[in-house]
């Protein structure tokens, strides 16, 4: 019966028929947060076409326009909706350029730690024995080191190794590695636990009996079945990674001010907090909050939907 359905329905109709879709349209939080995220993703990745200003083209900047307040205030200018920073850069454009960097770093870091963590956790759960013990103790050790400290350490070592000329170019990769390396134990733990459950099921034994290789069993048969919890922590991990990136940039060890991310913008604006130019730090900060909050809400909804035990 199921097979017949699959053949007659195309993928869109299949999606529309699914539990997930049903739960999605029933959840206003999920809809609102994903719409916000879609807008942010679109504006960030197509920022060149969305914003009228390129804040990194010195020819278009005028220092005399620096510290212009948001357009709705008394001294605001219509062309700078959210005002300008201390160099006369349009805040809105700068924020969108910055959020692109934050998103790239966040996504890359979470994919990096997902691949690393899932490979280790899956193999550990599947093979067991001493290998499993070593991997799991490794995650325990990793979990005792706070992720910001870990990222600071990696960045510090990278600064020692990489020459200064290279550092600015390499900064973004160092950051991805630093955040990724501090987040992988979550994935390793969850995927190991899920694998332990899955590997005793009949389909795994069956494949094993007919001689399917271990690698194929793990990645073709078990992996799709443990994807749900991984996707949930992946989504929440994305928000954490973006915040970690901002924290590191705020501390001055992240991306350089020449290509500011959200954290760098907040740090630069921090200098003007006392002098009343609140918009320079406020808007990047509020943008970061909205971004991380939306991702978290979406993650929460995914957890509720994908976890069969939470279903009513």
């Amino acid at each position, binding site marked *: 019966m199921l097979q017949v359905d699959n053949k007659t329905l195309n993928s869109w109709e299949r999606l529309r028929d699914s539990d997930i879709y049903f739960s999605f349209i029933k959840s206003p939080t999920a809809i609102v947060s994903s719409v916000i995220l879609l807008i942010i993703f679109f504006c960030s990745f197509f920022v060149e076409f969305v914003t009228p200003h390129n804040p990194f083209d*010195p*020819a278009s900047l005028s*220092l005399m326009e620096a510290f212009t307040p948001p357009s709705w205030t008394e001294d605001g200018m219509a062309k700078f909706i959210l005002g300008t920073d201390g160099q*006369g850069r349009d805040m809105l454009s700068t924020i969108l350029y910055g959020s692109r960097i934050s998103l790239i770093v966040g996504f890359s870091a979470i994919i990096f730690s997902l691949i690393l963590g899932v490979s280790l956790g899956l193999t550990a759960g599947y093979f067991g024995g001493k290998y499993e013990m070593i991997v799991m103790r490794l995650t325990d050790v990793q979990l005792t080191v706070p992720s910001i400290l870990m990222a600071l350490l990696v960045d510090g070592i990278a600064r020692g190794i990489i020459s*200064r000329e290279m550092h600015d170019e390499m900064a973004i990769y160092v950051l991805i590695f630093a955040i990724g390396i501090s987040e992988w134990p979550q994935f390793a733990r969850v995927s190991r636990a899920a694998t332990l459950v899955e590997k005793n099921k009949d389909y795994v034994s069956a494949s094993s009996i007919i001689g399917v290789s271990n690698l194929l069993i793990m990645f073709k048969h078990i992996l799709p079945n443990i994807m749900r919890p991984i996707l949930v922590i992946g989504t929440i991990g994305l928000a954490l990674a973006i915040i970690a990136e901002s924290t590191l940039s705020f501390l001055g060890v992240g991306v350089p001010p020449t290509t500011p991310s959200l954290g760098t913008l907040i740090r630069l604006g*921090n200098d003007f907090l*006392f002098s009343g130019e609140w918009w320079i730090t406020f808007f990047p900060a509020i943008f970061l909050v909205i971004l991380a909050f939306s991702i978290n809400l979406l993650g929460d909804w995914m957890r509720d939907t994908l976890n069969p035990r939470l279903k009513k």
Partner: protein
Amino acid sequence: MKFKNFIKIFFAILFVFVSTHSYAKTIKWSMQGDSLTLDPHAQNEGPTTQVSRQVYEALVTRGLDMSIEPQLATDWKTTDPNTWVFNLRKGVKFSDGTDMTAKDVVFSILRAKQPTSDFKEYISTISDVKEIDNYTVQVSTSKPNPILLNQLSNIFIMSKKWSIDFGATVSQNWDGGEETFSATNAMGTGPFKITLREPNTKTVFERNSNWWGSMKDNSLSEIHLLPIKNSATRVAALLSGEVDLVTDAPVQDLARIGNSADHEVVSTAQMRTIFLGMDQAADKLRSGNTGDNPFKKKEVRQALYQAIDIEAIKKKVMRGLSEPAGIITFPGVNGYTQDLDKRLPYDVDAAKKLLADAGYPKGFDVELRCPNDRYVNDEAICTAVVGMLGKIGVNVNLFAQTKSKHFKELKEDKGDFYMLGWGVPTLDSHYVFHYLYESGASWNKVNFSNSEVDAAIRVMEGEVDLDKRNAAIANAWKIVKDDISYLPLHHQVISWATKKNVDVPIRPNNEPLFRFASFK
């Protein structure tokens, strides 16, 4: 019985409170950077001297009004134009209790003349120092030196015995990255001694009980220097009462601090000019893309000059607290005139044309090196300059770093294009020429060389006829101004912010003198 005990305890507690209140008062002082080294001869840099000045003293010194006053020398006379005899103050003790004598003075002046000393140019005209008796020193110069006293006011006197005991007889080689005992310890005749030194974190100065002079306010017992690099954090620390004095209050926060009922702000024109230097000697820019050195051409230097909108920097970056400069010296220095201080007009079109005429119609790439914790809004000024030069096609890559690295790498000839600020402690133009323009001078990193200017510098050093000497200064300024060897930016205005109950007189060289500090 119980009641008696209670009374005792009550009086004990009362005594503790009363005594601590009236005797132990501390001033917590903050600025963005720290002293680079405690060795008084190793680094000629503002904050370094500011710290050394609390611990060490010189033969003569500048008072609150910046005039020369006796310090370790009580009086002096010139026996002939090349010979000075100084009578030393008797009864002066170092903070370890040993007497200060002529031996220490001779030792210190010779120490400051060593090749590793950063003050050797300061006193290059001193040819010999002799001890006549325990309290008389004779200083000989190679030629008549009208500004010897000005120069000696920055040569700090160390203890010969202490230096020998701790292996500090040679000035620390700061440029070479040497670490010495004298770089982390200080022992002088001044009003304070350093009891704790954590570079870039905390330095504790305690009263030197052996000091010969008298404090304005005897209740001041300690100074804590707490450098805070981030300007917002520094202001927050001041407003929350964590520090009492900030000697480089950020210009953007002066209004906020002034509005506080417990704080006040004082500003004064500082004796310091901020400028950009361009290496004109290298055949090829280290960070360039044209394969040659565009800075060799005056047209290029002028194009950069005219592309900088200094009024915009004054208004937006400095919030009005700067004075645009035409030369690297400021009102009050011998040789300064308002006429010299006029700038070339800001003119982007003219700059573009000059650049095209010089053969760089598309501009070129260069790296601008800046400190980020030395001058008022240094990094922000550099960022603004990067944007302005971008408009004429010069693609500038900004490299801002902490001052200790910035200065060190500058001395290692690593910079093509850099920011520097210059104060003139001697209040005479000679100091500027001797360090910034003389062929091969230690801070002449633009590698300017002009025989006429070099000759004029010799005149400044040896000419006692003031009219002739001033004519030489005026001529030298005209030559270097026409050549556009540097890009002058502005004279700095400094602002000190204090708690209302703390009074530390502001001085145009930005040096607090805590012996004149008092509590209200």
